[in-house]
């Protein structure tokens, strides 16, 4: 087993998804179940739904008010989807920034440890001693 194997194992650890991940999976499961239940209810079958839609778009049944309402729903759905996408993107950027701060802190801490070790070593050897040769730390 080489050192690279160990370093890869340490570097490629698992990362947790955002905290609300499980809740959102369960919400999607519930939404899917609700849709399935609605379709399974007597009287709420796909052919009747299709017939109603066909009636709505038949020229004689066409009403401007219905058309307006339909357009409003479509526009609202589009705006909602855009807002949701923007929210997701902002959250992902926030997570990324947080991870970068954590990494910077880890790197700073690692470097401080190295510096502290060198200072301690210098004190141990006495004030007149030459500094030790540079060693590559892990």
């Amino acid at each position, binding site marked *: 087993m080489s050192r690279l194997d160990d*370093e*890869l194992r340490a570097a490629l650890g698992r990362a947790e998804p955002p905290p609300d991940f499980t809740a959102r999976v369960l919400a999607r499961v519930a939404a899917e179940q609700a849709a399935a239940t609605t379709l399974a209810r007597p009287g709420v079958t796909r052919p009747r739904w299709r017939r109603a839609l066909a009636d709505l778009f038949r020229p004689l049944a066409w009403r401007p008010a219905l058309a307006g309402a339909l357009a409003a729903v479509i526009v609202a759905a589009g705006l909602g989807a855009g807002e949701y996408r923007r929210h997701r993107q902002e959250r992902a950027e926030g997570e990324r920034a947080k991870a970068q701060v*954590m990494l910077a802190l880890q790197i700073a801490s690692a470097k401080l440890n190295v510096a502290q070790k060198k200072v301690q070593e210098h004190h141990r050897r006495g004030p007149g001693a030459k500094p030790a040769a540079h060693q590559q730390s892990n």
Partner: protein
Amino acid sequence: MDLAAETLARAAEGDQGAFAEIVRGHQAMVYSLACRFLRDAALAEELAQEVFLDLYRHLATIESPEHLRFWLRRVTSHRCIDEGRRRQRRPELTVDEMPELGAMPPQRDPIMALTLQRLVAALPDKPRLVVTLRYQEDLEPAEIARVLDMPVNTVKSHLRRSLTLLREKVTRCLGEVEV
């Protein structure tokens, strides 16, 4: 019946709490695999959700906790490969453009860890997936071969070539470090 098998059985009978437990227990594995392959946290989260939704639909076919882990790794890997194919026309990211994975546990050597993460992220799709399954999931080449439907020798050859490349690059990036 152990606890994991019992949870699986309850989830298969429609117990939402048991299913939530399964999701919580495996979400880091699925999300990390997707994130390392797709190199996009939001897309990885979306794919991971799809995988668990798919699991919910197939709970009745899952025979044991081991089968569950195998199923999740296999479905995640294949969905990642499909997504990778869909995005093939997009330009490849350079090493410096690779996104961070999100909250990771503290590393022994953060500089080495970051360098390796970026170098692994720059590997081509299949070798990257093989290396991730080997070192993130600690799978043997034969297990990786089963997950990816790939001959064992191909897995071994991907691993050998990737490790040689990573060793060279990490030495070049970090100086004369013995790896």
